[in-house]
Structures are given as structure tokens and as C-alpha cells.
């Protein structure tokens, strides 16, 4: 066991317990605890987890953000959770982007709403939005710090609006300050959605899947958000296997299909941080078993297919699919592996992708020298420890200063990170690849891995990195010395 201290934390030793280097004995760092104020954290808020991560990808709902304008504006069309359902822009033309990312809908609270309560305004806003958007099959009200603090009873508003309009109305109550990170919002959405769907199915049994519609191969993909069209490469794999994907929680999914989640035979859980909660509840409440999987990299995607196949006794077909896919990508992967062999990467993501990607990087001949997680829990670190080699630096809820020190100390050839950190990496001369919304995805599955490898390759081999050392090639000092 080796906990480490970074230089930048000499004056805030509270951070020490959040970082370690993998070794003989597995360490679980302090995690999922309060952020130190002013430490320059990269974490977001619980609302972001509920609205951005899970609510955002649903294709045909109105996402009503009950807040002053900012919380809504920042979540408008940002994350690249794509979908294929479009509204009409004009008589003969569809909108430029799909419905779930085209409109930003908010109650835009003003001072008087804050003082006197925002429920009336919210109710009016919901009714108007439903009239404005006949495209929508449902509406989800998201609360924020403001509406959490003033204590608006949005559940009551939701019930009222549903009664009045007949449209499915849900509430996702996850004010930004209610947890320590986005993770709280994932959890809130999972539990509240499960509960509301259960009640809804009791209230309106016609929304359940009819018995005659069911097949023995009905599954649900849980924790898959269709980043940059990941589903276009992963979904066919399961379908070729003979499975019917009834619903995806929640990438490119219609609300009516999400209501049918309890009707499937198996849940296949991809993101096990943000969505395993609902799989657990489905198991407990409705007896739907689940398997965990990773759909990144050759080994893990194959394993996922094999395990899903085993559950349904379709092993042979799984092998055929894997062989076919491998033949398709082998040569390309070999090319990139040759180029990437021996390179070092640092990965900074929400949490799960660190362990999702360790194996994938190895498949490309690379080593992960550092893994950083914004909102991981103990089980994520267990998974990281199980997959990581020795000597990998792990940091929980890293802040900007630690990221810089990590980059300078571990000297990765490439830094996989998010939008905020990538420019920091570049300023330090370290190439980066956007690991949240991807550079040019999809990255999942077999075919997606080629895209991923290509973007890693482009990162490292971009000509620009040769020029960064100044006129005389030695950095600032040489230039100035004349």
C-alpha cells in the first residue's frame, strides 16, 4: 500500500487520502466525500448528473429545468448524447439537431418567484411547453439549487400537469448542492425514476408491454448514453446475437420504452457508476437479473457478448460475430498498435472509464500511468485495482493543481480528459483526447475502437508538438538567450 503526497498538497494535507499508487496491496482512497472548498475542483453538481447525464439522452421528453436561466442554458446542447428523433423545422425540413438537443426549456425564475415560490410559474410553464411541443411524449421537471432551497413541491406540480394533459410527467429532484458531485444526481435520477415508473405502471397498466409482445430475448442496455453514436456500433452486436433491445437507459431512447424496462429478461449494465442503481432495483423489485459489462476494447466487448450469449444459450453465434468483427478491424488496429506501442497515457474521467479503458490501452500497446476520477465510489476503485498494473497513480476527485503536477510527474505521451482539462494539458505541451464526448466517435465496440485508436494516434503524432519548443527548439530560455 502506498499513499502518496503531491507537492501541491503540502498545504492542504486533507487531500493526501485521495491518492495512491497501485501496488501489491489494493488501496481504496477516500472517495465520494465532500470537496474541499477552493481546491480548484473539476467536479460538477448533482443537477448535472441528473439532467445532463441521464435525462438529457432521452429523445422525446421536454426537459423542464426549474431554475434561473443559467442552470438551463449550460445544459443546452452540450453533451454529445445524440439521438435520431427530429422535430419539423418547416413544412419540408427537419430540425438541424435532434429534439433532445434542439430546445432548452426553463421556468427562468425571477426574483419574485424566488421570494414567493415558483410552483405556479412552473405549472404554467409545463402546460405551455406541452402545448408548444406536441412532439414530446413526456416531460421531466429537473430541480436545481434555487428550487431546492425555496422548497417548491415539484412532485405535486408533476402530478397535476399529468392529470390535466395526459402526458407522462416525471420529477427529477436533484439540486446541485444536494450531493458532493454529479454522482448524486445519477443516483437520484435512478431511484426517483424507478419509483415513478413503478407507480405509473400501476396507474396506467396499458403502458406495460403486452404479454404477446414479449420475446424470450428481451433485454435492456443500462447505463449507455449514446455518446457520439456509440449505439450505432454496439446495438447491432447484440441484435446479431438474436437479442431484442427493448430499451436503452437512456441513450437515444423513447420514454415509452423506458417505461417497459421491467418487462425484459435481462439488464446489461455498461456504466456501472451512473446506472447500476436502477438495475439493482429492477432485480429486487421485478426480478430482472443483470450482468455487468464493458463495451470498450476487443477483449471486453467480446467478453460482454459472450456473457450475454451465455445467459440465453447463444454462445456459438457470439463467436461468429466476434470473428467477423475482428476480421474487419484487425489490420487497422495492428497499424495503430505499431504506432502507439510503448506510449504512456493518463486518463481523467468521471470514474468508470478509467477501468473500462485500462485493458483497451493495453491492447494498443500502451500503459496507463495515471488514472483520475471525478466522482468514483469505492467499487470503482476496486475495479481499477483489479485491472491496473503496478505503479499507476490514482487520484480521487482531482483538482486542477494536482492534474498539472500529475502531468509533470508522470509525463504521459497523451492525456485523456474532458473539455476543461484538455486546454490545460495542451498548454503544458501534452496532447489530449476528449474522453467524455469524444473527438470523432463512436469509440465503443469493435468498430469504434478503430476511431478511438485513430484519435489517440492523431493526438500523439500531430506535427504541432514539434514546434512547441520555440525558435531554437529549447523552450523560452534558449529563445531569450540569443
Amino acid at each position, binding site marked *: 500500500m502506498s499513499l502518496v503526497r503531491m507537492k*501541491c498538497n503540502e498545504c492542504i494535507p486533507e487531500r493526501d487520502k485521495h491518492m495512491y499508487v497501485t501496488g501489491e496491496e489494493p488501496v481504496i482512497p477516500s472517495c465520494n466525500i465532500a470537496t474541499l472548498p*477552493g481546491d480548484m475542483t473539476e467536479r460538477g453538481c448533482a443537477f448535472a448528473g441528473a439532467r445532463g447525464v441521464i435525462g438529457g439522452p432521452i429523445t422525446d421528453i421536454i426537459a423542464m429545468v426549474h431554475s434561473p436561466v443559467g442552470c*438551463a442554458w449550460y445544459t443546452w446542447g452540450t453533451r454529445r448524447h445524440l439521438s435520431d428523433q427530429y422535430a419539423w423545422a418547416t413544412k419540408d425540413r427537419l430540425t438541424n439537431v435532434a429534439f433532445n438537443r434542439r430546445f432548452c*426549456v426553463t421556468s427562468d425564475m425571477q426574483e419574485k418567484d424566488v421570494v414567493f415560490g415558483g410552483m405556479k410559474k412552473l405549472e404554467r410553464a409545463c402546460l405551455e411547453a406541452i402545448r408548444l411541443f406536441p412532439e414530446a411524449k413526456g416531460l421531466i421537471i429537473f430541480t436545481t439549487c434555487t428550487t431546492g432551497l425555496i422548497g417548491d413541491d415539484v412532485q405535486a406540480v408533476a402530478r397535476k400537469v399529468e392529470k390535466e394533459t395526459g402526458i407522462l410527467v416525471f420529477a427529477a429532484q436533484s439540486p446541485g448542492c444536494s450531493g458532493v458531485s454529479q454522482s448524486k444526481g445519477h443516483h437520484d435520477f435512478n431511484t426517483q425514476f424507478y419509483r415513478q415508473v413503478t407507480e405509473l405502471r400501476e396507474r396506467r397498466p396499458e403502458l406495460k408491454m403486452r404479454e404477446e409482445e414479449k420475446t424470450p430475448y428481451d433485454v435492456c442496455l443500462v447505463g449507455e448514453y449514446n455518446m457520439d453514436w456509440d449505439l450505432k456500433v454496439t446495438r447491432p452486436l447484440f441484435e446479431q446475437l438474436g437479442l431484442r433491445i427493448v430499451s436503452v437507459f437512456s441513450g437515444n431512447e423513447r420514454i415509452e420504452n423506458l417505461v417497459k424496462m421491467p418487462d425484459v429478461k435481462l439488464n446489461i449494465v455498461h456504466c456501472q457508476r451512473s446506472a447500476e442503481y436502477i438495475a439493482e432495483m429492477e432485480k429486487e423489485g421485478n426480478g430482472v437479473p443483470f450482468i455487468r459489462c464493458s463495451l470498450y476494447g476487443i477483449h471486453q466487448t467480446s467478453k460482454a457478448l459472450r456473457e450475454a450469449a451465455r445467459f440465453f444459450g447463444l454462445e456459438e453465434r457470439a463467436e461468429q460475430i466476434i470473428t467477423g468483427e475482428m476480421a474487419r478491424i484487425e489490420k487497422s488496429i495492428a497499424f495503430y498498435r505499431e504506432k502507439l506501442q510503448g506510449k504512456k497515457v493518463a486518463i481523467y474521467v468521471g470514474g468508470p472509464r478509467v477501468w473500462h479503458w485500462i485493458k483497451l490501452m493495453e491492447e494498443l500497446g500502451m500503459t496507463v500511468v495515471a488514472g483520475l476520477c471525478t466522482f468514483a465510489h469505492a467499487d470503482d476503485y476496486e475495479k481499477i485495482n483489479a485491472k491496473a498494473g503496478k505503479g499507476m497513480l490514482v487520484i480521487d476527485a482531482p483538482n486542477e493543481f494536482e492534474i498539472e503536477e500529475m502531468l509533470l510527474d508522470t509525463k504521459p505521451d497523451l492525456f485523456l480528459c474532458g473539455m476543461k482539462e484538455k486546454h490545460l494539458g495542451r498548454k503544458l505541451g501534452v496532447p489530449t483526447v476528449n474522453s467524455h464526448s469524444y473527438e470523432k466517435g463512436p469509440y465503443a465496440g469493435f468498430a469504434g475502437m*478503430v476511431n478511438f485508436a485513430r484519435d489517440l494516434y492523431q493526438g500523439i503524432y500531430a506535427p504541432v508538438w514539434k514546434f512547441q519548443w520555440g525558435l531554437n527548439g529549447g523552450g523560452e530560455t534558449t529563445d531569450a538567450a540569443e
Partner: protein
Amino acid sequence: MRLSEIPVEGIPYDQLKIEKYTCTPEYAERPADLIPSGARAVVVNPNRTCMPLGAMWATMGLHKGIPFVQGAQGCTTYVRYTFSRVFKEPATIATASFHEDAAVFGGRRNLIEGIRNLVVRYRPEVIGICTTCSSEIIGDDMVSNIKAAKAKLREEIGREAADAVDIVLINTPSFAGSHVEGYDRASRAFVETLATRQTGPNHKVNIIPGLLYPGDIREIKHLLRHMGVEGITLFDISDPFDAPLRPPQKFPYEPPGGTTATEIRDMANSLATMALQPHAGQAGARYLERKYGVRALVGQTPVGVQGTDDFIRGLSEVAGLPVPEDLLDERGRLVDSLADTFHHTMMKKVAVMGDPDVVLSVTRFVLEMGMEPVALAGSSVSKTFVHSLREIFEEGEFTGDPLVINGGDLFEFEEYLKKLSRLDLVIGNSKAVDIAKELQIPLVRVGFPIYDRFGYQKRAIVGYRGGEILLADIVNSILGYQYPDDRTHQL
């Protein structure tokens, strides 16, 4: 193995065959009674964002300046994300990380600890504390909290080091205004807290640019240089938000440039303050005028001929210096460009959206081109927007009757545009991309935010030279769209 030998380099979208499904079988008109923003409670596609963003923007323009956001993490992280998207630069901004306990007991502890943690590691020279909706609702007594934070700092790093950090409070509850107002409030907060009268005048001119891009600020500095005027630019984001890739960088990363606290102090001794955006920065200029008698010149943003003329005239007058030949040449080049292009711009119908000062100044410029504005949407509600537009129309002898949206949302704007029989061009920020694409007309990008294209933050639309860039953009967009054939061979 060579790249050309591999069968697939990756799977581009066209190989993915994404089928588009329609939500409804066919197009249906949106209910007419709900189109005007004023007629509904719901806001669809807001044209503005929240107040703290403007205050953080301002603080990012200070040398060794770090914003500290008194609120939960989202309000900060989202803004950092937005800045990174727009400027392609890191944005170091601290948060008080309100969790549930802060919501119950208030954010005093978060502020005291947060400032401490920030200062001991980063040693900033200035901290701009931006409040949020939550801290304002909780009712944190910020003045007393800041005092306590300062006391804690002194205890820890000594009086001298602690007092070297200027802490400025900016109250920015979003439910009371937009990002534009946040910047405006910051302009006042910084001069109010820091500016001090010294023994003699400094013969400088204060410039408060407003929410202009690094390229614009560089162009303003170019104009000052040629006029021979020394300026103090308050919130000079030109270097922090457009920094070179030139390692070794300082550790931790410290963006170059920015206005120093000393410069802000000295603003009380200047000849005048020129606020280039009446809605974003006027408050600071007025304060300096009231308190220190520093003359405030608040005019439209220097876009186009007359906009820049006003600025140059003002500058020449307050500095008592003549306009040099080379600037008159620059002006002449812009006028020459207008002469070379009006056949393609006159009578073209244009819609403009964005922050009020962007809409006002760009409208003035398109009238100089003989274009016809048909819809003008200002992001943030303003008492003066409509009146200023009327003045601009009068000056440009424009008699049309465009839709004017003062603080309404983009849904209203877009529905109006879709019903027009003809529209040639939209001018505005990235939030208008979908609208322009759906109408199949070009979008000329100006203002904040622009995140879907590269380079706009680096170039200028202000000044005579910036005018030429914007004019070229407008003309070329129209040509590309309306003359796809070879008729442009004799332009």
C-alpha cells in the same frame, strides 16, 4: 505498415447510416398565442445566461486574478466549461463547493476555508468573489464572511502576504439579471473596491471593453497606440484568454497578461473612462465619474464606420491629440471596402441576435451597408435598447419596422424568422446556428458565445480594420449563398 495500407481509418458518420425519425407525422404550426416571449411563463432557448458568468469573465481579465464562486459546484464548472469551449483556453476558477450543509448552515465556512485553500496554493493577486443564486437565497453575509476569511489568511500566511491579495465582492444573483449585467456589476465592484486617488493625474484613458473578444481588445489597443494614448484596459482578457502555447509554463499554469490591481487603482487618476458597451461596463465608468470626477464616455461599441468614428473622436478629444494619418487611412480602407461591395449588401434582409450592445453596434454597421434589418433580438432586457435602436434607425434613415425583441427568448425570434417570406442572412452567435441551418441561409458569427467554429475569438470586429473583416464575412456569405455560379468572376 503505412496508413494507406489499412482498410479503415475509422468509421465516419456517413458509414453509420443514421436514419432520422420524425417526432410527429408532419409539420404543425406552433400555437400563435404562445409565440411572443411576453405571453408565456416558459422560456424556450434563452438568449442569455446567468450573472456570475459575466463577473467571472471580468475577473479572468485580471493579472493573477482568480474568480471564487460562492455557491455549489455546478455554477462554476459550467462556466469554466463554457469558457473552455469558447476560448479554447484553460479557465482557473475556484468554487466554494456548497454541499447540503452549506444549504442549511450557510456558506461562511466554505468561504473562509475556500479562500484559504485557494490563496495558499495559488497566491493570486486579486480574487473576485461572485455570489450565486444559492448563496443569495441562503442570505450569506458576504461582507462579514470576507472579513473573517481575511483574518484567517493573516493568521496563516502573515499580514503582509494576506494583505497583498485584493478580495473584491461582486453580487451576482442570476434571478436578477444576465451575464451582461454580471460584467457590468463587476466593472463597478472592482473600481469601487480598488481605485484610489493619487497625487496627480496619470494622463491615461481607461477603457472598459465589455464582453468583447481578445481580438477586439487587441484592435482597441492598436487604435490607442496609433493615437498615441496610453490606456488602462479594465478586464483585459486578450492574453489570458488567447495565450500562446509556449512551454515551459509557470507551475501552476498562470495565464499571461491581464490588468494589474495597480492599474485598477490608478483608474481614479485617468483623463476619462471609455465604456465600449453601455450595458457591460457603464456602471464602472459612472462610478469613477461620480466619485473621482473621471469623465465617463459611454458610447456604442466601435463597430463599422460611425461606431469607430465616435470612438476615435472621443479619444482624440479626451487626450487632446489629433487623429493621425495612418488611422485616417484605415478608415479610408473600410470606406473603400463599403464602396466595393454595396451592390451585394444593399436591401438585403438581415436578422441580428446577441447581447444588446452587439446587436446595437452591428445594426448600425449593417445600415451603413444599406442592408435592411428585419428582426433584432437583444439577449438581456434593457431600458435603453429600444430607444438606442430608434436613434440608430434615424441616423441611418431607415424607415423599416423590424421585430425588436428586448430580452425575449430565441424561440420567439426563430418562429418569427420562419414566417418571413425572405431573409438573406442571420448575424449572431452560435446559439443561432440551428436557426440559420434550418432556414438554409448563412450565419455570420459575432458575439458571445461562439463555440462551433474556430478563430472568432481571436479576431476583431471593432475598429476600422475589424469592420473590414466583418464586412468581408457578410459579403462573402451572401455571395456564397446567392451566387453559387460563375457570376462572381467580375465582382
